[in-house]
C-alpha cells in the first residue's frame, strides 16, 4: 500500500454539551475503500465534515500531502481533491440537475461576463448520470425528483469533481437494491482508477461487499479497525455497540387478527388507473417493497390524509372513512411516519420535546393551556424509551444525528395509541442497534393489536421484519408473499412487474 496522502491526527470537536469527536485519527491512502461505521451520533458525519472543510475541529491536525493545517475550508478541501456526498441533501430545488452537479464549477464563455455554457454543462453532466443509471435528464428540475433520485444526483455531483477522495455519507439510505448494486460497481471502478472512497452506511452488507477496511467509531472515539478479511456483520456490530444483537425477525405473539384498515381499489393522483386493494390486519407487520417511484410513498400519503385519493374506498374497523386532512386520519388512529424527515417529519429549529409533543398537545393540556411539567415528563419518558441520544429534551432536533432524528419522529407517534401505523422507510439512516430497537417496538405495537404497514427499500429489513410482504410495481400491487415465500429473488421479480404464478 502506498503512503497515505491524507492524515487526520487527534481530531477533537466539541459542541456545547457534547463532544462529537474525541482524539480521532484516520489515514487515507490512494485507491482504498474505507468503511466508516458507528452508532447514530458516534461522530461519523462530524469527522467527514472536518475533512470536507464544513466544520472546523476544536483541536487536532490535518495533514494533506506534505502540508499540515489546523482546519480546512470548503475551498481547501475541494483543492485537495476531496469530494463530499452529504448525508443531508444539499440540492437547489430551483435549478436543474446539471446546474446542481456543476454548481461553483460551471463551464464558461463570454470572457469577463462569465456566462454559463449551458450546452456544455448538460453534455458534461450526462455521463455521470448514465453511469449511475438514473431515469432523469440533465435538464430535469430538481424540484421534480424524488428523494432517491436526489440522492443519486448528489453522488453524480461528487463523481464529477474527479477528486482523489470521495466521501459518501450514507449515500444508499433511500436507494433500493438495484441502484445500490450500481453504486457498488461505481465504487469498484473508482478504486480501480486509484480514487479513494470513504463509505458510511448503516447497511452493513454493503460494507462487507465493498470495503477494504472498516474503521469503527463509538461515542466520538476510534474503537478499532477491521482489515479486509476480518470484515463481517457480527464483527462490526460487536465493535460498534459492544455486544451481539438478537435475530432480526421477531415472531408475532399470536397469528394476525381481523382486518383493521381495508383499502379497496384506491387510486392516487400519480398512478391513476392503477387501483390498489389491500388489507392491514391487527397484529401484523405488512412489509411493502418496490423499486424507486413505484408509488409506495404516494399510497402512504393518501392513506394518511395528506393527499386525497382519486378513487377507491377505505374501511376502518368495518366503517367507511374518508380523510381530507392528516388531522382526520390521526383522529381515526392512522399515523404516518414520513419518508422525508427533514421536510415533513421534524421542526428542526425546535426542541426534542416540542417535536414529540406536537401531535399530542391536547393530552397534556387543560383548558387549552399546555401543562409544562407533564409535557416535559412525557417527552423525557419517550426519550428514555427510545434511547434518543441527546443532552436533554430541550436540544434542537436539527443538531441531532440522523438516526436520532428518526427516533424522534417515531417517538411522536408512540405517545399516542395508533390503530394503524404506516412507516415509510422507518429506519433510514438508523444504526443497527437502534434498528433492532425499532423493530422490537414495531413488534410490540403489533402484538398490542396495531396494524402496521412498513414501507422499506432495504431488502434485508423487508425480509427480516415483515410477517407478509406486498410488492408494488408502477402504482399497483404486483403480488403478496407469505413468510415462507420470502426471498430477494421473488421480491425483485414482483418489483419489476412480473406476477407470481
Amino acid at each position, binding site marked *: 500500500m502506498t503512503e497515505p496522502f491524507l492524515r487526520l491526527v487527534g481530531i477533537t470537536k466539541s459542541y456545547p454539551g457534547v463532544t462529537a469527536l474525541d482524539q480521532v485519527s484516520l489515514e487515507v491512502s490512494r485507491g482504498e475503500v474505507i468503511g466508516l461505521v458507528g452508532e447514530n451520533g458516534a461522530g461519523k458525519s462530524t469527522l467527514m465534515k472536518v475533512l470536507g472543510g464544513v466544520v472546523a475541529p*476544536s483541536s487536532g491536525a490535518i495533514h494533506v500531502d506534505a502540508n499540515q493545517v489546523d482546519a480546512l475550508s470548503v475551498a481547501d478541501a475541494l483543492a485537495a481533491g476531496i469530494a463530499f456526498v452529504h448525508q443531508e441533501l444539499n440540492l437547489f430545488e430551483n435549478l436543474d440537475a446539471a446546474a446542481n452537479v456543476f454548481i461553483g464549477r460551471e463551464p464558461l464563455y463570454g470572457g469577463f461576463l462569465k456566462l454559463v455554457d449551458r450546452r456544455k454543462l448538460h453534455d458534461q453532466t450526462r455521463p455521470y448520470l448514465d453511469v449511475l443509471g438514473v431515469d432523469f435528464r440533465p435538464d430535469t428540475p430538481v424540484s421534480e425528483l424524488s428523494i432517491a433520485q436526489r440522492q443519486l444526483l448528489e453522488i453524480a455531483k461528487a463523481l464529477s469533481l474527479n477528486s482523489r477522495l470521495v466521501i459518501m455519507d450514507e449515500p444508499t439510505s433511500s436507494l433500493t437494491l438495484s441502484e445500490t448494486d450500481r453504486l457498488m460497481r461505481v465504487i469498484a471502478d473508482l478504486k480501480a482508477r486509484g480514487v479513494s472512497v470513504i463509505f458510511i452506511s448503516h447497511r452493513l452488507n454493503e460494507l462487507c461487499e465493498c470495503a477494504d477496511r472498516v474503521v469503527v467509531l463509538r461515542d466520538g472515539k476510534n474503537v478499532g479497525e477491521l482489515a479486509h478479511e476480518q470484515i463481517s456483520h457480527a464483527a462490526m456490530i460487536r465493535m460498534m455497540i459492544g455486544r451481539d444483537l438478537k435475530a432480526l425477525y421477531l415472531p408475532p405473539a399470536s397469528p394476525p387478527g381481523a382486518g383493521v384498515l381495508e383499502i379497496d381499489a384506491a387510486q392516487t393522483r400519480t398512478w391513476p388507473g392503477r387501483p390498489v386493494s389491500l388489507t392491514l390486519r391487527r397484529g401484523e407487520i405488512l412489509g411493502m417493497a418496490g423499486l424507486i417511484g413505484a408509488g409506495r410513498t404516494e399510497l402512504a400519503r393518501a392513506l394518511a390524509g395528506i393527499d386525497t385519493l382519486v378513487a377507491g374506498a377505505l374501511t376502518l374497523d368495518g366503517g367507511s372513512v374518508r380523510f381530507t386532512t392528516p388531522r382526520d386520519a390521526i383522529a381515526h388512529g392512522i399515523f404516518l411516519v414520513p419518508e422525508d424527515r427533514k421536510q*415533513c*417529519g421534524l*421542526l428542526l429549529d*425546535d426542541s426534542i420535546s416540542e417535536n414529540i409533543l406536537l*401531535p399530542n398537545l391536547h393530552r397534556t393540556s387543560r383548558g*387549552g393551556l*399546555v401543562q409544562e411539567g407533564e409535557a416535559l415528563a412525557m417527552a423525557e419518558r419517550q426519550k428514555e424509551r427510545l434511547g434518543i441520544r441527546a443532552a436533554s429534551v430541550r436540544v434542537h432536533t436539527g443538531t441531532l444525528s440522523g438516526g436520532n432524528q428518526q427516533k424522534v419522529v417515531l417517538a411522536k407517534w408512540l405517545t399516542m395509541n395508533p390503530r394503524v401505523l404506516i412507516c415509510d422507510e422507518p429506519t433510514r439512516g438508523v444504526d443497527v442497534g437502534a434498528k433492532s430497537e425499532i423493530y422490537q417496538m414495531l413488534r410490540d405495537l403489533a402484538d398490542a393489536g396495531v396494524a402496521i404497514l412498513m414501507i422499506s427499500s432495504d431488502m434485508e429489513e423487508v425480509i427480516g421484519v415483515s410477517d407478509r410482504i406486498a410488492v408494488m410495481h408502477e402504482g399497483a400491487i404486483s403480488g403478496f408473499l407469505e413468510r415462507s415465500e420470502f426471498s430477494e429473488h421473488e421480491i425483485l421479480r414482483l418489483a419489476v412487474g412480473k406476477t407470481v404464478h
Partner: protein
Amino acid sequence: MLKKDIGLLILILVVGTVVAIINPLFISPINIANTANLVGLFGIFAIGQAFVIITGGIELSVGSIIALLGVLFVDLMVNHGVPWPVALGLMLVLGALMGLAHGLLITRLKLQPFIVTLCGLLIYRGAARYYTADGTAGFAFGDSFPTLEWLTTGRTFGIPHSMFAFVVIAIVMWVVLHRSVFGRYLFAVGKNEEAARYSGVPTNRVIVASYVICGVLTAISAIFFAMYTRSISPSSHGNFYELYAIAASVLGGFSLRGGEGSIVGVVLGTILLQILQNLVNLLGIPSSLNFAVMGSVILIGVLADTQFAEYRKRKAAAKGAAGS
C-alpha cells in the same frame, strides 16, 4: 424572558437614562404618561402583527385598516347616531372579517401573504378615502361621548387607559402564545408548516386565526387612535404603521421567516420605538432628524446586541472546550 429580550431591555434603559440625564423632564409623570399612552396605542396592533409574523406571514394592511375603521367608527357615531357600543362592536367584527378574508385568501387560494395584504393596504385606504370623498372624518366641536372618552382616553391614577388595555392584551396574548396549545401550533406552523400538517396540526385554521387575531387587535387600536386624534384624514392616518409594527416585532426578536419571537420582545420593541420618538421632541432635536435618530439608535442597538451575543457564545464555547 429570553436573552434577546434582556439585551433590548438594557438598550431601553441606557437610552432612557441618557435622555433623563440630559432632560430630567423625560421622567416626569406627565411625560411618562404621554409615552405610555402611545406605547399602548401602537403596542396593541404590534402584538397583532407579531401573531402573523410568527406564522411566517406578514400583514401590510394594518395602517389602512386603522384608517378605514377609524373613519367608519367616527362617521357611524357622529353622522348616523349609532350608539357607541354598537359601533365599537361592529368595528371589531369588521376587523375580524378582514383578517378572516386575508387568512382564507392565503390558505385556501394559496396567495402570498405579502400580495394579499398589500392589496388590503391599497383597497382599505382607497375605501376610506372614497367614503369621506377625501375629506376628514371627525367629531364636531362639543360632540361628546363621556363613557367612551373615559374608556379610551381617560386616565386612572394618571395611567392612561390605553396602557391598561395594552397590558391586559399583552398578558392575555402572552398566555395564548407561550402557554396555550394554539400558541405551540403557531410556532410549529412558522417553523415548518409541512411537518406541522403531518403532525395533525390544523395548519390552515391556525394561520387564519392568526390573521383574525391581528385584525381584531388592529380594530381595537383603530378605535383608540380615532378617539386620540378625534379626526381622521384617511389619506394619511396610519400611514407607515405597518412598517412600524413590523419593526417593533423584528426588534423584539421575531424573524420574518416565522417561528421565532416572544410577546415580551414585541412589547419592548414598541417601547423602544416610542421612546425614540419622544426623545426627539424632548431634547429639542430638529424634527427633520427624527427619523435619523430612530434609525441610528436601532442600528446601534441591534449591532451591540448581536456582537454581545457572539461574544457570549464564543465564551461559552471556550468554556465547554475547557470543561470537556
